[in-house]
């Protein structure tokens, strides 16, 4: 039994490790290398140019614009999504009318709401983006949203939505929030239902309002889950590729008001002149931003665990 151990370990690890090494680790390492070359699809050979590509993106206004949009997404989308998720989860689990001795009760049909809210989570981002592109249709008669505003007499609010440079990015953010709230409702509900009802009972008897119980009991006890959710949402906000590529006018338009770094990278590498070196450098920049975000999040969320 002993001597077979290493043969078994190698046998079980060889294939997954080989696949992972070739398709994940090696491209990862190569990206740093490619980012220091002037490789473009036009020349088969690549020349070492050191940090020239990094200098280029640092002086590229479009890159900073795209990065700024990613940072805006990173600041706004997770906050709103998690806040709405917490709000709805609290409503579902504690917002119900108390019956008999139960100190806290969920609303009726809580299970039903959770099923509906979770719908966008199982749909592909492609489906969501194309569907919302149709909803945002700028024509006052054709678009679902504009036509709704017309029907209820709010004609003045009708917009060209994705075509308006001042609100296009906000429209995309709204869709990202719409798509992700349901996940956090379910996640936070699971967390809330594991908090013993007696804690609520005690604080309600002591005269706390439900709002107080939310901030003093629910939120502190869910701290870890909220922090994890924050990281998940941050990753989604850093990407945003499919939403912007599919929904925005002219791939990042109008006037580059919705461009994000992943889309810029994709366009640089696979659409415009195949500037692989430059695109690879943008990839490294993405990694740096992601790492900074992860470290900051871990720093901010580290605190003593509350056991219950």
């Amino acid at each position, binding site marked *: 039994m002993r001597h077979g151990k290493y043969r*078994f370990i190698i046998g079980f690890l060889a294939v997954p490790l080989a696949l992972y090494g070739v398709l994940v680790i090696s491209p*990862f390492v190569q990206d740093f290398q490619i980012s220091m070359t002037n490789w473009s699809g036009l020349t088969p050979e690549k020349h070492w140019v050191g940090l020239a590509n990094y200098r280029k993106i640092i002086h590229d206004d479009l890159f900073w614009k795209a990065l700024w949009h990613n940072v805006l997404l990173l600041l706004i989308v997770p906050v709103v999504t998690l806040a709405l998720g917490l709000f709805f989860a609290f409503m579902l689990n504690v*917002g119900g009318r108390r019956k008999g001795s139960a100190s806290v009760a969920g609303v009726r049909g809580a299970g039903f709401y*959770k099923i509906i809210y979770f719908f966008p*989570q*199982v749909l*592909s981002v492609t489906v969501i983006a194309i569907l919302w592109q149709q909803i945002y249709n700028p024509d006052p008669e*054709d678009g679902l949203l504009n036509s709704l505003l017309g029907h209820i007499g709010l004609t003045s609010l009708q917009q060209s939505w994705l075509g308006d440079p001042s609100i296009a990015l906000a429209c995309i953010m709204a869709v990202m929030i719409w798509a992700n709230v349901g*996940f956090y409702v379910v996640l936070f509900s*699971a967390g809330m239902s594991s908090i013993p009802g007696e804690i609520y009972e005690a604080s309600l008897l002591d005269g706390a309002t439900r709002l107080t119980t939310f901030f003093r009991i629910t939120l502190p006890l869910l701290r870890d889950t909220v922090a994890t959710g924050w990281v998940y949402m941050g990753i989604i906000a850093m990407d945003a590729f499919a939403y912007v590529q599919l929904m925005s006018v002219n791939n990042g338009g109008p006037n580059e008001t919705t461009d994000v770094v992943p889309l810029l990278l994709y366009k640089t590498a696979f659409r415009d002149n195949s500037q692989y070196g430059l695109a690879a450098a943008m990839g490294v920049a993405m990694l740096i931003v992601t790492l900074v975000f992860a470290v900051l999040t871990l720093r901010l969320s580290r605190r003593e665990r509350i056991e219950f």
Partner: protein
Amino acid sequence: MTAETFEPTGPASEKTGARPKANARWGWKRSEGLVLNAFSHVFLVVWALMVGVPLLWALWSSFKTSGDILSHPWSLPTHLHFENWSHAWSKANMGRYFINTVIVVGFSTVGTMLLGSMAAYVLARFEFPLNRLIYFLFVGGMAFPVVMVLVPLFFVTKNLGILNTLPGLILVYIAYSLPFTVFFMTSFFKTLPTSVAEAALVDGASHTRTFFQIMVPMAKPGIISIGIFNVLGQWNQYLLPLVLNQGDTSKWVLTQGLADLAVQQGYQGDWGGLFAGLSIAMMPVLAVYVVFQRQVQAGLTAGALK
């Protein structure tokens, strides 16, 4: 900690608390409860409509003529135009893309679960040099953005001759699903009792046999959770096929076909076909979700709850 610890708090404070004051508070709190109840229901219904109506709209629009979709976006179809669906399925090739997606996701999910569980089992249960290093190598993959490796990955698959092929896409999906699968399954295998596997080994079963006949059946709940997670993640993948499968349209997957349909419809004005295509991509996953909603919710939130 068990619930009993908190039990004395309730009755005790009721007894010691000043009676009249407590009664007044109870009354006030009851009305607070009623207001909150109405308040919460309004918000909950509004959000349910905001989620449900767009999806229903896509479905009912798929039965309308293109002209009707444009001029009366809110009206119900007067006549069920099934030809939108048959048009999308055959002429717009959605049927082909659907089958391609089933093939790719089927093979890559099975591959991911098999390879991921094998690696996770070894990393969770055996001590050997480099164990930690290999574990962190796998798990580290969760931290970096996939978009970062697009350029080199494109050339790696090209050099291996698997660019623009379905097997290539399957291998890439497996490789990029391994980090989370290994991370989750390693902690899952650690929670399983060691005694059963040890008994099997003493009885003369090989390590391989112990894994497949004893550990895999025991790990079934974890495998199902992460299996669902992978099926949905791979079914919905857009970026990887867009870059690594841009060749022959007959090899496209559903998300690529749908994105193309959205662009085509702009030229051809076939809005009914677009909504039928959206419904084709949407309905199967929604149907599976409604039937298995508990497992799906548990599977997708499993990683975040740890």
